């Protein structure tokens, strides 16, 4: 509600805001925050729906992507083999210690388990399948097998199975790749004679799979991978598919986490200070009223067309056009100075100028009827000469 008064004029007061316009104003004031909140909620819902149940870990039995192991896990489940995916070492041990025959699939890509944990697993497990095991795992599960490095990319593919292991009986060949292992006997020999290195090693109850391509969704149908995978994993009624995570890593040594040395109040105080920062932002960011806009006038520099033409001349190296313009303008000035009419011919103007000024006619003729001028240096020299002559003749 407001009224505008002036010594000699009284302007119409704006009408009081109606309820509708008040709400419209509030909507305008809050709409940014409302939109941000709605977008945040939608993003959270989308994220929960789209990414929640999905698992993107390599060889995970829940991962339907090319690198996942869901295909093998589903086929095994269809053959009444229960596939369990423990989410930690304790759960894995519990699953292994349960009744009935179990196979342990251990795929420790990050090498998170230490010697003690591996030993514990080894004691609990019956049949074990190690996928791309490292040195630590082999030392516990298959002491006489040694890693022999990575299969070179240029290795011939496929590799013939060529071995007497029953699980590989239906397999003739498989893709080359992954890691290779040195052992007394094995299948998919990558090495030469006396330097055997295998992609599939069986030692006691432990099977070492050198190539994850035997199991993953993308390659399980290649060559004879499918029977190999199913035979290897489906020997017992229960399969414990265990992929350790960083949560299973057991920190050893003193003060692995320096934050644990800090007093208790540090993190609540830090949180409070963050909150204080937010409050300070709210305090400083609140404007006292909306911004006032200034309707600015258009600014057009008057000489911008001439400037544009100059740039065109320059870009096109239009020396002739520049010379013609300057010469014509100079002749006009001469004609005005010598009181010759607008219609005078250039010859007459130059001749009169030579007579009046006493300058040599040949010099003026060279200047006003120039030979072909080449190069910017020539142009500048000519223009300066023109300028000098004009001054000598007395044009201000």
């Amino acid at each position, binding site marked *: 509600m407001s009224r505008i008064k*002036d010594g000699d004029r009284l302007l119409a007061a704006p009408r009081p805001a109606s309820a509708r316009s008040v709400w419209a104003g509030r909507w305008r004031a809050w709409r940014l925050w409302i939109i941000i909140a709605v977008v945040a909620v939608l993003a959270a819902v989308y994220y929960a729906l789209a990414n929640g149940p999905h698992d993107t870990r390599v060889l995970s039995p829940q991962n339907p992507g090319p690198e996942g192991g869901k295909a093998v896990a589903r086929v095994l489940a269809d053959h009444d083999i229960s596939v369990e995916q423990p989410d930690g070492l304790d759960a894995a041990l519990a699953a292994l210690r349960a009744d009935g025959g179990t196979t342990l699939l251990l795929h420790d890509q990050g090498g998170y388990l230490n010697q003690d944990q591996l030993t514990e697993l080894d004691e609990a497990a019956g049949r074990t399948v190690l996928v791309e095991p490292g040195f630590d795992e082999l030392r516990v599960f298959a002491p006489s097998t040694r890693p022999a490095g990575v299969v070179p990319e240029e290795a011939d593919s496929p590799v013939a199975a060529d071995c007497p292991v029953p699980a590989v009986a239906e397999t003739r060949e498989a893709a080359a790749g992954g890691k290779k292992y040195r052992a007394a006997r094995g299948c998919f020999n990558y090495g030469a004679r006396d330097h055997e290195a295998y992609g599939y090693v069986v030692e006691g109850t432990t099977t070492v799979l050198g190539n994850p391509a035997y199991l993953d969704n993308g390659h399980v149908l290649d060559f004879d991978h499918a029977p190999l995978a199913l035979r290897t994993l489906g020997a017992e009624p229960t399969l414990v598919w265990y992929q350790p995570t960083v949560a299973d890593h057991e920190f050893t040594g003193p003060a692995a986490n320096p934050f644990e040395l800090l007093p208790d109040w540090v993190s609540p105080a830090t949180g409070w200070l963050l909150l204080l920062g937010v409050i300070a932002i709210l305090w400083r960011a609140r404007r006292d009223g909306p911004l006032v806009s200034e309707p600015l006038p258009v600014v057009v520099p008057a000489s911008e067309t001439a400037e544009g033409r100059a740039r065109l001349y320059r870009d096109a190296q239009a020396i002739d056009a520049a010379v013609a313009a300057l010469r014509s303008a100079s002749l006009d000035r001469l004609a005005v100075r010598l009181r010759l009419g607008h219609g005078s011919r250039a010859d007459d103007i130059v001749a009169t100028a030579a007579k009046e000024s006493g300058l040599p006619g040949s010099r003026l003729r060279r200047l006003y009827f120039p030979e072909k001028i080449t190069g910017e240096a020539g142009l500048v020299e000519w223009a300066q000469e023109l300028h000098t002559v004009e001054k000598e003749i007395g044009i201000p």
Partner: protein
Amino acid sequence: MALYRRFVWLALLGLVPVVLWPGVPTILIALGVLSALAGLDVALAASPRVVVIERAIPRSVRLGEPATAQLYLHNPGTRRLRGSVRDGWQPSTGARNTRFPIDLPAGERRVFAINLQPVRRGDLSVHHTTVRSSGPMGLAARQLTHASAGTLRVLPPFHAKRHLPSKLQRLRELDGRAAIQVRGAGTEFDSLRDYVRGDDVRSIDWRATARRQNVVVRTWRPERDRRVVIVLDTSRTSAARVADEPRLDTGIEASLLLAVLAERGGDRVDFLAYDRRPRARVESASKAVMLTQLVEAMAPLEPELIEADFSGLPAQVRAISTHRSLLVLLTALDSGAVEEGLLPILPALTSQHVVVIAAVRDPELDERAADVSDAAAVYRAAAAARTLQQREALKTQLRAVGAEIVDAAPLELPPLLADTYIRLKATGRL
């Protein structure tokens, strides 16, 4: 809702319990206490919604002069309103003190003076006033923006006024009132008086001399009550800035000087701002208010970003004056716009009126045409020379149709136009 610095300090104080009894419950309790205090403070604050806002704004102010607008705040509520107020003047009004602390007891009214120093011509406005009402503890405040519109009309500065005394002096010389007589050719007979040495012998009235003992001369006075129609072009070419002033503003200065001069010279002045349609019009009315009407009409003029359409101009001029008039057209001599728009209709105007075309010349082009220091400068000089030549050709064409041309730099245009008017008046061509 707005927070105060005191609230932030209080929140910092909340660090003490958080450190003494670390834990989430402490944080929640501290947060709860803070929110409760802020909420209480806001609840106890006076409502900014009931405040009644009134303004007193000067009707108009000349550009360059200060003005004071007054803001009245009335608190009809039952609580004392403490806090601050901010008035939303647009920046070009030059308002420095738009924020005031306020302390309004219930039912009382206060006035605040806002000092304005406008930096632009035109209608400058204020749209809203924001009232922030602080709670008794000074932790948080209620804030509301009231719509409260107001306009300050900023008139053209009329710097050309300084030329007025000398031009008026010359006008008076024409009028026969001064000691030195300048006789116009086509002027009207005024009176007879005794010959004094220095008078033109051709002005001796022999018949009257024969009747009396002294030699008697006739005196003339310039024609009076002629019509002067000033047309100001507000099309896109008037937006161009020459010497840091839009052509439109130079045109306004020149129009004002000419109008005041013509009015003192006894002529009737009409003003028309035109591009495709009339933008402003002032008719020759009572002389005392002519200047006021003129500056009021000119104040809100802005360059329109459209091409001028002069084909409607003869009809507009005819509507203003059916008699022979001095038609002053303030426009730009840009080749394309004038050749296509103005040249075709100019014969229709020159056949009936005396037409003067006044245009602003860009002194920068002359400077550039003379600069041949390096290659880039030579190309610029060539382009400038070419533009100037086209302009000269255009002026020749316009003169051939019978128009007078006044082509001058921004500062020189108003006096030169005034000189042209005096010359035309002296030679009786009006």
